[in-house]
């Protein structure tokens, strides 16, 4: 019995200190939440009826969009029917926000005659050409700079003026296909054969027909996609397809072939940056449904740091006050509480490091508050235990006899009460969104750590102390412990 107690006690101490040392050595810290180190958090909600698969697709697209904008390992995940993006400590918040706020889906619209948009306007300029498999067939036109961007307006037969990225405008007909014709995440930037950059994107097998039908209209210069200019030789040029995101024309390449075979290449006079942006848009175009941001939150790094400092300082002061009170009240036995709380703190730290490393759940202010409240609940385990021992001793039992009996009844109380907390934590975690989730996670962790420390540290420590001569003749319970 005694040997097993020693094994449990020393084993726990070694395991917990070892885990802590390992975490410290490998610099494995709990990830701090947005409200503690500053950063950006966005919650996106898809429109009604988005399936689970849609959500996963959006999640991956947002993630890769962020990665392209230079955020390493962005934390993007599906929570319930929402997409949650947490970027604690992100440097360039504005850039990150732009990468995340992809609201629209990409539309493919033919460029139509200006007369369809009624308002007279100068020639829409052509930026890029499109051709299959990277064969370049026409030279890009020089950019025009004398176009006034009009406000997008809807006209009969659904044609409307849409602004382009460089501030001019084109008249676009009704959308005939969406970005879903492109294979997900397949757009990439390559060096064109004759210098300059080209954007290559693959067509989905089920999207090829829609794209080719639109391309054929444009190539054959049908009324739905008429010629909009002349090429260098003065011949009438094939029509253009406008790639539209959020009502802004990203690119309007000329179609140089009626049939595309699974692969589209857009070449033109764009810089590398512009080409990458277009590739981005085409990748985004694979958004299966429209999403809108529901909550956006940026916290400055200094405000986050202040909160963290205040939480830690006040937490430690609170803990110190509790310990002073307990030492005053329980005297020698408070040693067990101090040791137990130290072990508990180390276990919570290690568990938090492990969990936030494995699941990316950051320790937020809500989590820290949960831990501070947990101090009270953890101390309660000791109080229940010691008060029971006090009763037993006062009724004539020796300390040695009272300790194991008290522990048995205390353990029953503690696990019943703690189980309720764990149930609450699990339910909150699985059903709620955002910061409530982080809180539930840390509530669960601290409660389980409490049970762990209570059984594997407090029990052997107190039972061994009760058997030793250390307590004999000391005042511990408002009465002296008699020599047994």
């Amino acid at each position, binding site marked *: 019995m005694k040997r097993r107690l020693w094994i449990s006690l020393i084993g726990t101490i070694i395991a917990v200190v070892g885990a802590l040392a390992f975490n410290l050595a490998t610099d494995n810290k709990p990830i701090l939440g947005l409200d503690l180190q500053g950063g950006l958090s966005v919650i996106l909600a898809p429109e009604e009826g988005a399936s689970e698969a849609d959500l996963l697709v959006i999640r991956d697209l947002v993630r890769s969009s962020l990665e392209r904008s230079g955020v390493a390992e962005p934390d993007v995940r599906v929570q319930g029917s929402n997409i949650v993006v947490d970027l604690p400590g992100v440097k360039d918040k*504005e850039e990150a926000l732009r990468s995340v*706020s992809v609201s629209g889906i990409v539309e493919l619209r033919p460029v139509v005659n200006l007369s369809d948009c009624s308002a007279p306007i100068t020639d829409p300029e052509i930026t890029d050409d499109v051709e299959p498999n990277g064969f370049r067939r026409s030279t890009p036109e020089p950019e025009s700079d004398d176009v006034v961007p009009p406000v997008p307006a809807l006209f009969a037969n659904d044609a409307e003026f849409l602004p382009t990225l460089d501030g001019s405008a084109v008249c676009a007909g009704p959308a005939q296909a969406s970005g879903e014709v492109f294979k997900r995440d397949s757009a990439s930037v390559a060096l064109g054969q004759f210098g300059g950059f080209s954007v290559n994107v693959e067509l989905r097998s089920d999207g090829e027909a829609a794209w080719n039908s639109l391309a054929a209209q444009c190539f054959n210069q049908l009324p739905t996609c008429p010629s909009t200019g002349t090429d260098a030789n003065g011949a009438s040029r094939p029509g253009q397809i406008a790639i539209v995101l959020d009502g802004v024309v990203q690119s309007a390449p000329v179609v140089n072939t009626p049939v595309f075979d699974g692969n589209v290449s857009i070449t033109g006079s764009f810089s590398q940056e512009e080409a990458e942006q277009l590739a981005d848009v085409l990748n985004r175009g694979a958004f299966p449904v429209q999403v*809108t*941001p*529901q*909550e956006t*939150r*940026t916290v*400055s790094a200094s*405000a986050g740091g202040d*909160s963290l400092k*205040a939480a830690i*300082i*006040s*937490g430690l002061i*609170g803990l110190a*006050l*509790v310990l002073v009170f307990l030492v005053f009240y329980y005297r020698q036995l408070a040693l067990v509480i101090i040791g137990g709380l130290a072990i508990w703190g180390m276990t919570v730290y290690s568990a938090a490091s492990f969990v936030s490393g494995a699941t990316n759940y950051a320790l937020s*202010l*809500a989590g820290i*508050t949960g831990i*501070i*409240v947990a*101090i*009270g*609940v953890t*101390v*309660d385990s000791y*109080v229940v235990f010691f008060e029971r021992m*006090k*009763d*037993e001793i*006062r*009724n*004539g*039992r*020796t300390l040695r*006899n009272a300790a194991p*009996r*008290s522990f048995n*009844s205390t353990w029953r*109380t503690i696990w*019943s*009460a703690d189980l*309720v*907390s764990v*149930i*609450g934590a699990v*339910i909150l975690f699985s*059903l*709620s*969104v*955002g910061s*409530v989730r982080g*809180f539930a996670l840390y*509530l669960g962790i601290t409660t389980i750590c409490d049970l762990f420390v209570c059984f594997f540290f407090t029990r052997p420590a107190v039972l061994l102390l009760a058997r030793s001569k250390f307590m004999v003749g000391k005042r511990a319970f408002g*009465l*002296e*412990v008699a020599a*047994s």
Partner: protein
Amino acid sequence: MSRGDYIASSGPGRLFRGQTAVDFYGKRRIGLIVAIVVIVVTLLSLFTRGLNLGLDFEGGDAWDVPASEDFTTDDAADVLEENGVSTTGARIQRRSGETTDVVTIQIEEVSRDVALDLTNGFAERAGVDPEEISFSFTSSTWGSEITDKAVRALVIFLIIVSIFISIRFEYRMAVAALAAMVHDVIVVVGVYSVLGFEVTPATVIAFLTILGYSLYDTIVVFDRVQENEGKYAGVRMPYEDIVNISMNQVLMRSINTSISSILPVISLLLIGSGLLGAVTLREFALALLIGMISGIYSSIFVATPLLAALKANVGRKARRERLTGDNLRAAVIGSGVTGRVAAAPTDVEGDNDDDRDGDDTSVTIVEPAGKLLTHPPRPRKKKRR
């Protein structure tokens, strides 16, 4: 000194030594009246004043701009007007602490471009980097969505916890524990409504913590009640007595735990948010503090009397008045041990009811507690070590 068979002369001494004999059950009406008053005040306040819901529940944009001599709430209003945003619906307030000083601006939802312009406008006016400004946007439907989710989680939690308590203890205890919990939430909501504190997601989390804490505290008390129930199974002890005995036995534990739980929260409130000026901490700490105090109170004055009332007409009929005064004290001291009580600790007809105050100066000896053990501790043999 080492034996517990004398009664401390002063109140705190008796408390310390676990010798109190407070007739909690007899005073149950006080608890009931307080609870009813609290509920009525809360409901009145909810209907007349409502809750001061924060941005996250109503939707809109908000900024925290570091304040300085050069940037005041008037400047913030100017920036809003310059960008064509009406200041009528806007809430602009200055929140200051020892080290931090911010101007918080809350307006109704505007487009993202306007929001960006405003951020830069505030930054320029305050003379700080835009990165220094905290910005948050919440859509108007989001608040109701998270509230719905939280309520759904709560309902499921309550159902599962009721089932758990019913299995582990009994269904009457589940009813009493949940009633105490509802009481605590009503108290906190009432305080927030009457004083007009802003309800934020932080407050909601604090509410949830309170629910957990209240249940935890109640279960610790009920566990002792259930244990004593088994202990007195053979002696037809009235339930009110069992409740009274259990409450007196856990009184010191409740006080100690309360102090240990509340000290960190007070530190969070006074040092964290007061001295160091972390505004978000205040929202947490305030709700927590009120909820914890209410949680401790309700375990003793709401949950347990209610349980006794629910159990009053069940099973054994009380054949006598409940124990009070020194008889109760003797029972409290006597049953604080593991094992089963074989016989009633005192005479059935207590003759010195309700006059324990009169005994304060003299040391009263009741039955030596050692007799109450089913088997007295064995004298230890010298060589057995």
